[in-house]
């Protein structure tokens, strides 16, 4: 378990997506372990989300709390399963060189970043859910949190896609013991692997790019942009509608508990109706 958390840590720090690490056109991540970590972190967020139902005025609504805990990981994993075939096929059609395993690794790594940010915002959501009586506020807050973590997950996806295409074009290293990184030919070869002693003043010597940094001097490929945009659209649409299908997550205090509400309308129509309700 600790090993898998370390792997998640490597992804967040950007070590798993360094250019040198992406040479084999795949990201070295243990799929099974990472999926388990994603599941657990999403469950943790579900618990935080469920505090609203757990601390209701009329007494704890344990079934809704349990339902939230189970639904958040299901949302992510089901969306991944539903969209993976089309994402891979579209990726291949556009001419990307990523194979099936590489696409899966890339998606799972992005999902891991998404869920890590989500879980870290959990305490804030839990705190507000305990202390607020307003259902619209709880909904709005959760939507905002999902949006922020989704945005960061997508940024990671875009940068990694870009780096994968750049790494493919790099010349192979001259020997396995080479110390220089080819993408930074001007940087001096570090004689030791220890971090530099902390200087009280002056800029930090430029280190490796983080997980979300854009690479300097490399423009985004046209096909990388196409792949990213299409993935964002497919994943976003399916994810939003899946969230609607799996509702309720928070549980309107005025309505009785149900595992799933009756099939009616869809996410986008509901958003449209809410907007109309706000202004008309």
């Amino acid at each position: 378990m600790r090993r898998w958390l370390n792997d998640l840590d490597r992804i967040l720090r950007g070590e798993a997506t360094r250019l040198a690490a992406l040479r084999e056109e795949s990201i070295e991540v243990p799929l099974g372990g990472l999926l388990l970590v994603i599941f657990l972190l999403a469950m943790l967020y579900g618990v935080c989300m469920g505090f609203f139902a757990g601390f209701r005025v009329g007494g704890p609504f344990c079934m809704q709390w349990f339902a939230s805990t189970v639904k958040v990981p299901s949302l992510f994993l089901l969306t991944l399963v539903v969209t993976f075939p089309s994402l891979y096929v579209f990726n291949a059609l556009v001419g990307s060189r990523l194979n099936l395993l590489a696409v899966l690794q890339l998606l799972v790594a992005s999902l891991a970043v998404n869920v890590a940010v989500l879980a870290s915002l959990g305490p804030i959501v839990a705190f507000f859910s305990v202390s607020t009586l307003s259902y619209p506020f709880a909904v709005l807050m959760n939507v905002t949190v999902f949006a922020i973590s989704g945005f960061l997950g997508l940024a990671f996806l875009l940068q990694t896609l870009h780096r994968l295409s750049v790494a493919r074009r790099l010349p192979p290293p001259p020997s396995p013991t080479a110390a220089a990184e080819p993408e930074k030919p001007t940087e001096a070869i570090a004689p030791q692997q220890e971090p530099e002693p902390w200087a009280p003043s002056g800029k930090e010597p430029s280190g490796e790019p983080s997980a979300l940094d854009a690479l300097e001097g490399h423009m985004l490929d046209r096909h990388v942009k196409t792949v990213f945009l299409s993935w964002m659209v497919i994943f976003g649409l399916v994810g939003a509608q899946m969230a609607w299908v799996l509702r309720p997550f928070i549980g309107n205090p005025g309505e009785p508990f149900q595992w799933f509400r009756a099939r009616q309308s869809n996410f986008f129509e509901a958003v449209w109706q809410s907007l109309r309700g706000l202004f008309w």
Partner: protein
Amino acid sequence: MSGLLVQIDDILRRRGPLLLHPTRSALLRLILCVVAFGTFYGAIMGGFGGIQGERLWQIFNSALKVPLLLLGTSLIAWPSFFVLNTLVGLRRDFARATTALMAAQAGLAVVLASLAPLTVVWYASSADYAAALRFNGLMFAIASFAGQGLLRGHYRLLIQRNSKHRWMLGTWLVIYIFVGIQMAWILRPFVGDPGAPIEFFRRESWGNAYVVVARLIYDAVRR
């Protein structure tokens, strides 16, 4: 005792040693500073209704609440700060960033405690509850300004090293203020209306600080 005074001096004058060698014990000492000085100010704050009989409970409650407000808010905001710092590549500086944040909080608590005698004089001069609330609000505001300045000072070294720290500092402030306002709302009462019973929470008027303010604004605009 002199060691403690030297430490407080370091915090207030934004001297370097804290950040150059951030150790776990240094962090612990900063947290203890927040607890000690926050408790002191809280006890003074709760003494509005007097120190006779039952009112001692209000003093006790308020003494608990001030450090709870400061440290509780930090604790809730800390995990997201950690993940965001990691994602933008500032993980190596994270221990120092946390120490800088805690040093600013300790400084805030010290400033607050130094304003406690003024609060005592105010309480001795006026029995008006609303005025007492406003005065305490003013004391917290002064301490917060001082804390802001301290935070910028302690963070300057980090920002010099990597300008992304400025973004992280801004993000921390947004999250901290967002959570802190709600925390202050639900931890009421701090001063304690002498006419009302003594409770730890005013449970029936819990709810959301932001919803309450929005409703107030909406009502004011509609009128």
